């Protein structure tokens, strides 16, 4: 470790400071073109032989920028809904149809999970059973999970209906023919 270096450190072997004043040897036109061609060949080879670089170009650049140019005027809500579908549509409904002090009671997480399963939606963290996730998008409104309804300090003002589930949490009956797949209703009339 402390033995004397046999080779110089790169920092020592090149002019270190005031590189701004250093210049390069002049480059000829053919060297310039040759260097460009060499780089192009290397990049084409890397691109064709590596999925990860293809992903950068095809997905992160081409697809995303293409989508953005195709739909430049989507609202915030529409953009989030594009990514999260049903999950965000419930949150959006809450924001659009309640005051900022609303407290929304959600159906049991097992029910929500079964709805997701029936709809063949992937089981992920960003879902309607994740309280933090939901409260971020409905902020400053609050959510009360079914499982915490007995202990929660907040008193629910509304019930989120998801997959026709949650009507039993209302203090009044709703006729079967009026029941919707997704809805938001006051907890009492």
């Amino acid at each position, binding site marked *: 470790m402390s033995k004397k270096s046999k080779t110089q450190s790169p920092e020592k072997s090149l002019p270190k400071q005031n590189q*701004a004043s250093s210049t390069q040897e002049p480059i000829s036109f053919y060297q310039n073109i040759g*260097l460009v061609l060499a780089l192009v060949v290397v990049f084409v080879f890397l691109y064709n032989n590596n999925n990860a670089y293809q992903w950068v170009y095809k997905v992160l650049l081409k697809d995303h920028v293409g989508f953005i140019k195709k739909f430049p005027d989507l609202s915030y809500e529409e953009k989030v809904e594009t990514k999260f579908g049903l999950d965000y549509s419930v949150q959006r409904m809450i924001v659009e149809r309640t005051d900022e002090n609303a407290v929304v009671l959600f159906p049991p997480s097992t029910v929500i999970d079964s709805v997701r399963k029936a709809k063949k939606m992937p089981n992920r963290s960003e879902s309607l059973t994740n309280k*933090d996730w939901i409260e971020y998008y409905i902020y400053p409104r609050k959510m009360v999970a079914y499982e915490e309804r007995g202990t929660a300090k907040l008193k629910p003002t509304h019930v989120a209906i998801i997959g026709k589930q949650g009507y039993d949490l209302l203090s009044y009956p709703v006729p079967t023919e009026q029941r919707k797949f997704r809805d938001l209703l006051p907890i009492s009339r």
Partner: protein
Amino acid sequence: MVFLFIILLPLLSGWIIVNSLNTGLNTPIKIGASYNLGIGLISFSGFFCNLIGMKFGLLGLVLPIIIACGILVGLNFKELKTRFVPQFKLLKSEYQLYAWWLLLALIMYLLYGAYMRAVYWPITEYDSVCGYDYVAKYLVAEHSFDNTLLRSKDFLTGNRYLYPAFVASADAYGYLVGLKNAHLITWLQYASFLLAFYGLVRHVAHPVIAILATFMMSVTPDFFAHASFSLTNIPNAIFSSLGMIALVMYFAKPERGLLLFAALFIGLGLWCRVDAIVYYILSFFMLALFAFMHKKYMDLMLFALIGIIPYAAWNIFTTQVLHVSASAGFIDHLGVDTEKISVIGAYVYDLVILPNQQYALTFCVFWIVLMANIQFILDEFFNVVTFFLFGLVMYAGLFYFIDNAKTGVSTKVYMEMALKRGLFTLVPLAWYFFANNPLMIKLQEKVDFLRQRN
């Protein structure tokens, strides 16, 4: 408002501080580092003022920085022109190189794509929605870090204190001045960092080599994807890698300005993520060794003190105000868990040795260049390779000490969620070494048009 506070103020304040340090760095590094330093210090200032009793708001965020910059300009008033006016002589060497323009165009295209994604898509990153940006909303609403959210005992919420508040505070700063999408801050950091990295490599390499290393670093898949996310990983990688590369330059030419520059950035890395403590400890030990060899004890003390301030302040806040401990999730007994070691080892092998979706060829190139320069690592200790190798071992090793039973998260999940992004810090180190190794230096000496002359 947004231009003034989100772009101009961080850039200008960072510029004044960086130039006051007398680092001898070139203009691209200083401009690129300035934005990152400025936004980092503004974010920390807001927290620090809140910690000592002020409301979290614009006053606490910007006033200390403006006052500090005013003092620095006042102290250097006689050298105003020589010290604070940017010099662009460097670029005179690059304009004749077609390859340089080609690579610049590719970098600009990447930045354009990242910018479009950053400003178009709302924040939907899980860790930001359930973490940093959510905290930012409460900071704006309640004007305090001691807020309802951070005090909540909910499982996810309760773990938010594990992350120091760079992103939360910077996002909140953005919202206070009317910023619609906080992704822009990360993008600005990323774009500035590319400039700084180019300048760092340009210090020691030909313009084409420097811009090639910059391009290859910027196109590293996951690294690039995160340039449009409001997460801690890119800011941490930027701060920590800038700090470590600056320290490598300090080892070659031990000037106090460079040391302070390194200390500020290593400290800001810790202001993003607690696990950046690995890079602080590593830097500290390398610097300690250097300090004992060269009798630079004051430099060591300054580094140790400045680098730890954000972490210490955050720890004081979490333990004294929130009454929680970030160390609660670590093991409290020693023993050898071979299964855990093999899980960590397997993931490290997949991520760092083999070509993969996250890093493409970045680390493969590093190992190839390292093998080609094997004598170099045996001879030189105070270089970027030491930071890379020890950084990798220490960062991966950190997961061994997490008590999975206490946190309720398996090692496998930590590997998949945390390790792969945690290695971002090593990406700039890998590409810096690609441009700055004995073989590359020899190549530049042999090939006439790659040669530099003074």
